[in-house]
């Protein structure tokens, strides 16, 4: 057991990449325990949290994996050999129970993002009020609840694998909602039903080709219905939102910046109609502002203590081709053997739009590059890949677990929207093997 502790600490120290940590008092102890009540007053303040330290290795020089599209491409995540940034994170939560019907919760999560700010790191800050046992109202910053795991993506200790399947969760740009939701609960004979309605806005800044995009939404809403019966959970969801802002690079393509943009070409009646038509198509499909995005999802999970099964399928649509959309799904199977849970996952995403090809001959135009660049952008954001993952979780402690996972991903040509890579690379089929070891804690 002593050697095991040394091994674990060697792993932790490996993760202290670049940290000027000279001295650590391993004997220092501090207690973060839930308040234990001895009185009849059941109000309490509780501090709790969770965390992951993780190291990933990959075998490709020009493809850099990311856990989600909000991560940074300019820091260590862009390394070509190994990274500690992709899956490491720390969450802290304060919960005040005012009484049986009213809770206040604040949760912050430190994780790799393009910009780690207080606003981005505030995962939730809400009140929850239950006027009756069948209804709950929440207001403030709340988790986005459209998918089976969309509000638990950061909680590595809660699931068996290293990360939610990237094909299914890596591209969803919404982590939380600033708004409100209402949850209705109904008990059946042997089942419990839950209907949740969410509405609000969200704003996440993430880089596209090293240029920031403020993905603030408008009209964001989600409706989910779930049924739990013993070990089986079924959940269906529908969500819709629009983007409020235009991406700077797209604005330049539209209106021109010292050159004629797509809008000027569309308005030039001297040009051949096929060029005008293609310019209009590219203008309408290389834009984020006002684009409507919808998700329809269905998920199921089963856990009887031995077997763990989970699967989800979804379809997303977008009114502009440039916003990644398509059909996606995964299936995961695990089996507990004492404290060990070996598992495998197969996940895939197929783009909802075909690879865009030039339709008209723009070679006579001085701005012919507008055509190739616009088409290139549409093809850059397509996501067409599948991953087979094998791994094992070891619950070596009541509040900590170690995980090891190997992922083999096949990226189809013009389907590299979920990884950072060069434009040359995405034109070809590629494969990458990614190995990850991580330790999860909860406290």
């Amino acid at each position: 057991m002593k050697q095991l502790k040394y091994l674990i600490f060697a792993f932790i120290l490996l993760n202290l990449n670049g940290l000027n940590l000279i001295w650590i008092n391993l004997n220092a102890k501090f207690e973060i325990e839930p308040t234990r009540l001895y009185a009849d007053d059941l109000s309490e303040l509780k501090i709790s949290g969770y965390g992951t330290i993780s190291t990933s290795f990959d075998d490709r020089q020009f493809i850099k994996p990311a856990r989600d599209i909000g991560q940074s491409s300019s820091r260590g995540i862009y390394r070509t050999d190994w990274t500690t940034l992709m899956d490491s994170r720390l969450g802290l939560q304060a919960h005040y129970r005012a009484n049986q019907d009213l809770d206040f919760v604040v949760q912050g999560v430190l994780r790799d993002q393009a910009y780690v700010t207080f606003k981005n790191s505030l995962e939730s800050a809400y009140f929850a009020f239950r006027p009756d046992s069948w209804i709950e109202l929440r207001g403030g910053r709340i988790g986005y609840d459209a998918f089976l795991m969309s509000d638990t993506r950061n909680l590595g200790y809660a699931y068996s694998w290293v990360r939610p399947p990237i094909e299914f969760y890596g591209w969803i740009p919404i982590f939380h909602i600033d708004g409100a939701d209402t949850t209705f609960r109904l008990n059946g004979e042997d089942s419990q039903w839950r209907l949740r309605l969410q509405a609000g806005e969200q704003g996440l800044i993430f880089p596209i080709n090293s240029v920031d995009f403020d993905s603030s939404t408008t009209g964001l809403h989600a409706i989910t219905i779930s049924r739990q019966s013993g070990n089986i959970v079924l959940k269906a969801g529908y969500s819709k939102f629009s983007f409020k802002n235009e991406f700077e690079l797209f604005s330049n393509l539209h209106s021109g910046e010292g050159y004629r943009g797509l809008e000027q070409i569309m308005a030039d009646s001297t040009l051949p109609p096929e060029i005008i038509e293609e310019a209009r198509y590219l203008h309408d499909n290389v834009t984020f502002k006002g684009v409507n995005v919808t998700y329809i999802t269905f998920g199921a999970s089963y856990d009887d203590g031995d077997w763990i099964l989970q699967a989800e399928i979804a379809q997303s649509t977008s009114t502009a081709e440039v916003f990644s959309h398509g059909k996606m799904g995964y299936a995961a199977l695990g089996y507990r053997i004492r404290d060990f849970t070996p598992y495998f996952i197969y996940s895939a995403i197929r783009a909802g739009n075909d690879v865009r090809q030039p339709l008209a001959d723009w070679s006579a135009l001085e701005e012919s590059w507008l055509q190739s660049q616009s088409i290139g952008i549409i093809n850059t954001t397509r996501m067409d890949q599948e991953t087979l993952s094998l791994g094992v979780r070891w619950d070596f402690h009541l509040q900590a677990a170690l995980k090891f996972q190997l992922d083999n991903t096949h990226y189809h040509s013009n389907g590299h929207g979920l990884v950072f890579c060069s434009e040359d690379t995405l034109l070809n089929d590629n494969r990458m093997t990614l190995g990850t070891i991580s330790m999860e804690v909860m406290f």
Partner: protein
Amino acid sequence: MKISINFIHFIILLVYSSIYFSPSISFAESKEDIKEIAVIVNLENKIESLNSKQVSDIFLSRRRTFPSGKAVMVLEQERDGEIREKFFSLLNGMNLKRLNAYWTRLQFSGEIQPPPVMGDSTAMKNAVKNNINAIGYLPSQYVDESVRVILLLK
């Protein structure tokens, strides 16, 4: 406000050293004291009995009312304690590690916050005695006429 990712590693290291070098199980009553676990409710609660599945659904927060439709207030024993381990083992076969993972998901997703944790079985009994909607559990030797037993697990 830029925050280094290494700060995350540093904090997790401190948390990890805290939990790993701390005793993982502490409990007020010793293991040999626990032969039976009684699930108890307030005397004014009209429920006479519940089966294991109904109680399991309530303590896993899947069901938030009694079968009568009245709201239920769940009270818990110490998270990593022997009583809780024994209770869930007898009730639905879940061990503490699986329970901790289960509650991590509910707690940090905002689905529901964990129930109030009682300091010991005497506090549990008193809290159930004083709250009409409460449900709790304790070793059967702590039961007296101030609460009603609706399920006995052995």
